[in-house]
């Protein structure tokens, strides 16, 4: 649903509050609200073609209004406080019958339980990764191992999933895009109608051409001899983990990249070993 493949590179996607819908009609949109009923009542059929997905900013009791509304449309559920809210995901599991549903949760203390339950209920997961400290790296490593190896995890966990596929198929990828935080792809519109930079760039001064930010940032890190200069994972990362603190120690996230790279190589080898379809000599 909401992976980067659905965010077109040729048009900015505006992440807007439902109240701003009329002002942004005709553009590519992600629409957010706290109220499932309001989404159903205010988004018309004419709007659906331009929707990348809708985001439910909190988990009020009852998701019935969304079950049969706009079937096939992606829904992202935001868990701001995963340790407190995660069990409420049971109330939203019925959405999966008719929608691709992803759970967005911050990588903070206690996020593991939410990620595990979300995966167990067959929700996709998007991690707001930030610049994780060492204890969180351990939790992320466990989650990555489950994502890679446990049959009980059958849905994507981002950013792991897109990085794995990108490395496996040797396709160019960018964490900024995967995390929907590249200003060239996504703009956040606040309740007052002000356009902001997305995600962790919100409030930052990135110059007059925000759409060029990622390339300029990556180039600057390399030329200034930061840790990125020698990093084997610079291509998919593009300095993502060096924002906002440039002195962030990437040792932990590199272990995660390394695990993903090894898995991608193993997957590529497995795929190469599959005989072509219709090969009569295959066992």
């Amino acid at each position, binding site marked *: 649903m909401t992976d980067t493949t659905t965010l077109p590179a040729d048009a900015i996607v505006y992440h807007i509050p439902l109240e701003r819908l009329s002002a942004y009609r005709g553009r590519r949109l992600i629409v957010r609200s706290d109220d499932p009923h309001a989404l159903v009542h205010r988004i018309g059929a004419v709007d659906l073609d331009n929707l990348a997905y809708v985001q439910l900013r909190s988990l009020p009791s009852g998701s*019935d209004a969304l*079950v*049969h509304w706009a079937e096939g449309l992606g829904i992202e559920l935001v868990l701001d406080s995963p340790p407190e809210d*995660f*069990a*409420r995901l*049971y*109330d939203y*599991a*019925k*959405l*999966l*019958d*008719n929608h691709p549903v992803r759970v967005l949760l911050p990588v903070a203390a206690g996020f593991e*339980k939410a990620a*595990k*339950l979300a*995966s*167990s*209920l*067959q929700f996709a997961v998007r991690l707001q990764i930030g610049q994780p400290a060492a204890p969180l790296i351990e939790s992320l490593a466990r989650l990555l191992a489950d994502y890679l190896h*446990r*049959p*009980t*995890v*059958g849905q994507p966990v981002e950013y792991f999933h897109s990085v794995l596929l990108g490395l496996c198929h040797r396709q160019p990828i960018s964490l900024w895009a995967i995390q929907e935080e590249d200003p060239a792809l996504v703009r956040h519109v606040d309740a007052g109608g002000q356009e902001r930079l997305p995600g962790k760039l919100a409030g930052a001064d990135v110059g007059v051409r925000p759409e060029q930010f990622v390339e300029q940032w990556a180039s600057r890190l390399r030329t200034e001899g930061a840790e990125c200069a020698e990093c084997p994972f610079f291509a998919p990362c593009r300095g993502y983990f060096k924002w906002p603190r440039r002195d962030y120690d990437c040792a932990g996230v590199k272990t995660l990249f390394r695990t993903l790279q090894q898995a991608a190589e193993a997957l590529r080898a497995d795929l190469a070993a599959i005989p072509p379809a219709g090969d009569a000599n295959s*066992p």
Partner: protein
Amino acid sequence: MNGNHFSLILLATNQCNAACEYCFEDKTRDHLSIERLGLILDKVLDHMDAHGIGALTIHWQGGEAMLLPPQWYREAFALIGEAGAQRGKHIDHGLQTNMLPYSPEWDAVIAEMFGNSVSTSLDYPNLYRKLPERGPEHYDALWASKVRMARSAGIDVKVISVPNRATLEIGAERFYEHLVDELGVTDFQINTPFPGGEANDAKQALALGVADLARFHCELADIWLERGADRAVRIGPFDQLVNYFTQRDATLPCIWGRNCADEFIAVDARGHVAQCDCWVTSYPDYRFGNILECDSLSELLRDSPARRRFTERPVQLVQRDCIDCDYLALCHGGCPVRTYSMHQTLLEKDPYCELYKTLFRHIEDQATRLAGAGAMSPQTSSQGVEALGS
């Protein structure tokens, strides 16, 4: 309810011809009239309309469902078919019966209404299933003769079996031989026992050591994998677990659903509504209401405090130790009635937790080994018995 599909366990009659000592039902002489069936059906279809649900499966049970005559089912089938067509609903039917009232008069309706397939129950050795004033041997002989008769008419007979202490004593090998090799049962499901309903001595004796029961399950799974899996023998839940662990489509039993309150309800012959057949006659405090006395099934379900206890159960359990389980995705705390009948509360995990974990781990290991050896047979698919089997 599930977004696109609704399952209704419908007790056409609360009456039973058998007197099985471990039965969880509080049997009465009530049965559904066609008129009452029509009233129930209208409210079920209204509920489906209100929730945009397009498909319905009616699991006919009792009591003993075959105590109503074949002609009653013909009328019911016509009524339901007409009402479903008018509302644009797809409606399927399944039949759970002890087979004892079966005669060739049933063949036409079984073929037309139930796709020439029925599900029945048999334990081995049989300790508890019997007719009034008769013993288990008489029951077994009568059951076998009826099943033979049905099979000779081309009816597919699936079996649910509940292990008891004698089953564990004879072991998985002998159990498999009897069901598969001697009785020719090729599609059956193993259910765990529970002392549902009013207490009696037989139910007190149902309790089995979980470790012993786990060993039986694993041994039976191994025997099936070695001898039956590639010869069209299906044993639930093993076959579906193999599918699950090899990343194929799997229909796991209702006891392991993410929340059975989202999946189905039961209605008995008096119109009482409850979570499933294990609850509807035996636990009045856990009924959701009466469909014949309400204006709207949707409102009844929405407003029922009893139903809320079911919907809340996995939410509560996952905040305790279930979240740490490797197999949370398969189980979600297990079966409410097994929990309640042994712990007198819904807010505990299934008493067979350790059995399930042992079985999951065992099947996962076996599936991984078989997949690695390229020895997997085509996807095992079994329908009906394992989806809703008490």
